């Protein structure tokens, strides 16, 4: 409440009008880059920056989904476990298809389709329980978080599900190659971000998400089908987790009970750092992108130096996160 009040008066971003609040996360990002440059001359290399962006792409894509969920006043704690289930399902299906389809892109594409499908179905499950069952999103997704996590443990029989190596070799370029020197994960991340920004700002769906998060009653009286819009946000979230996992599997080639642990926290953190309000009503996708990149850079910067004891990494992270948000809040008073 208190934290959201300052947004009230903020003008909507028409084009990219610069105001203080908008600048907040960008300033934090800039300071972080400055810190990186000071600490290590390799920081600004093309290699390092693409590394950081590519690896931020999973969380980034998931966080873009979370931006919609949170903007409409919801929450999804299950995304990390969902990612693990999707990865597991993709790997199992691909391994299982090899005898009939042989090694090749056919198998990979089938696996990808399964990934998106499982994500969508998981989203439908979450969304239905929340909208039709009228159970708090926190509880539903806490429950499915446990359920999904168990499921992947069960499927992997407590161990690891590994993708067949030959298929993995076919699939690998999806993470490691790119177009004109830009790795695919970054391209996909960028496309999802642009698409998300457009949906949020330029479509009725985005508008409805904000309206529902701001005041559900008002949305309802404006003949918005609140339940359907809510449901859609969870499905979108599920599908985007699927997309993220499409990029994740070629990188790690395996899934286990530890895949995706705590991704939900990171995704939500990215969303909030980016300026979306946790209680709903106001969300911005590009802010989320900046938030996620900030989180990615923190990890990178910690690896650039040996000054801070690795035991204190978490403390450094915590301080930066608070400062990044302080920067955008503090300016307004």
């Amino acid at each position, binding site marked *: 409440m208190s934290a959201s009040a300052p947004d009230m008066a903020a003008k909507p971003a028409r084009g990219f009008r610069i105001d203080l609040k908008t600048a907040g996360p960008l300033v934090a990002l800039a300071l972080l880059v400055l810190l990186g440059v000071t600490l290590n001359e390799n920081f600004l290399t093309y290699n390092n920056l693409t590394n950081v962006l590519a690896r931020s792409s999973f969380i980034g894509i998931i966080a873009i989904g979370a931006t919609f969920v949170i903007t409409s006043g919801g929450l999804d704690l299950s995304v990390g476990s969902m990612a693990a289930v999707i990865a597991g399902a993709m790997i199992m299906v691909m391994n299982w298809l090899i005898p009939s389809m042989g090694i090749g892109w056919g198998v990979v594409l089938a696996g990808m389709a399964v990934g998106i499908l499982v994500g969508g179905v998981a989203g439908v499950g979450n969304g239905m329980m929340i909208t039709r069952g009228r159970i708090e999103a926190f509880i539903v997704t806490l429950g499915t978080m446990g359920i999904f996590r168990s499921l992947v443990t069960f499927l992997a029989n*407590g*161990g*690891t599900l590994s993708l067949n190596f030959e298929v993995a070799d076919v699939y690998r370029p999806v993470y490691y190659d790119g177009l004109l020197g830009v790795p695919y994960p970054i391209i996909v991340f960028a496309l999802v971000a642009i698409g998300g920004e457009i949906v949020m700002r330029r479509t009725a769906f985005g508008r409805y998400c904000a309206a529902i998060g701001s005041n559900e009653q008002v949305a309802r009286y404006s003949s918005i089908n609140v339940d359907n819009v809510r449901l859609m946000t969870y499905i979108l979230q599920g599908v985007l987790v699927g997309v993220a996992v499409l990029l994740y599997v070629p990188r*790690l*080639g395996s899934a286990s009970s530890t895949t995706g642990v*705590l991704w939900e926290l990171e995704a939500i953190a990215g969303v909030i750092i980016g300026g979306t309000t946790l209680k709903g009503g106001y969300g911005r996708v590009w802010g989320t992108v900046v938030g996620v990149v900030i989180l990615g850079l923190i990890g*990178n910067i*910690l*690896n650039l130096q040996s000054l801070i004891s*690795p035991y204190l990494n978490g403390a450094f992270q915590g301080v930066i996160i608070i400062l990044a948000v302080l920067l955008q809040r503090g300016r307004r008073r």
Partner: protein
Amino acid sequence: AQDKVTIGVSVPAADHGWTGGVNYFAQQAIDRLKTTYPNVDFVFASAPDAPKQIADIEDMVSTRNIDALVILPGDPDAMTSAIKQVKDAGKFVTVVDRQLSISGVENLYVAGDNPGLGANSAEYFKSVMPDGGNIVILRGLPIPIDAQRFDAFMAGIEGTNITVLDDEFANWNRDDGFKVMQDFLTRFPDIKGVWAQDDDIALGAIEAIKQAGRDKEMFIVGGAGMQQILQAVADGSALTPVDVSYSPAMIATAIELTTSHLVGGIQVAGRYILDSTLITKDNAAEFLDPSSPF
């Protein structure tokens, strides 16, 4: 050897006692070697999960120009291709404890023996329970190393009269060891032995057994060689008569071997298997190290 050498060390975050030990011994080794070899630089990172650990080693290659990597992969299957990339970039790679999913990637493999830990424990149970009896098992986390230990143990006691009443995950954690053991004690009136697989779990279980006043009825076998347990073994405790070594100090061995290879040109290659030995009252003294926090 080069003038200036940089060695990257990547381990999982201290999310349970044993990995805590890994972090400790890695730091110890680094501090020690830094003073011995002023021209060696170390980059140390610990990561909570596989993507983070991959990110760490990517960063070591692209921003810290490491010459060698010593890695204890948290999730070896997920890490294999990333480690292979480091190798392909011409770095010397030492893998610790956990086997990668394709062979021939690492230059050096310093291995703990997970199946050995299970098998050695099973041997002990067989020797002290020749007529069989009821036991319970407190497992770690549902990850491959746990499965290796568990499967080897079950294979070891096969064909004996030892009955496993139930097994539950205690997550290599004292609090969970306490809870699970409390409930097992509630449920089973007759337990002769407890295989806790890990000393952190064992410490929690011991408290539960003491609370129930059943510490005369059973014994407990942990693993990993934690000082607190070793002390009890050395003191001849009836509750913890033995322990099975699985020292997190293996990371230090790996770092030392790698450093001496790079600096001293000493040839190291292939596999170093560090046995999981049974620690008894007689040999406990060899393993005691009062300065270790593990």
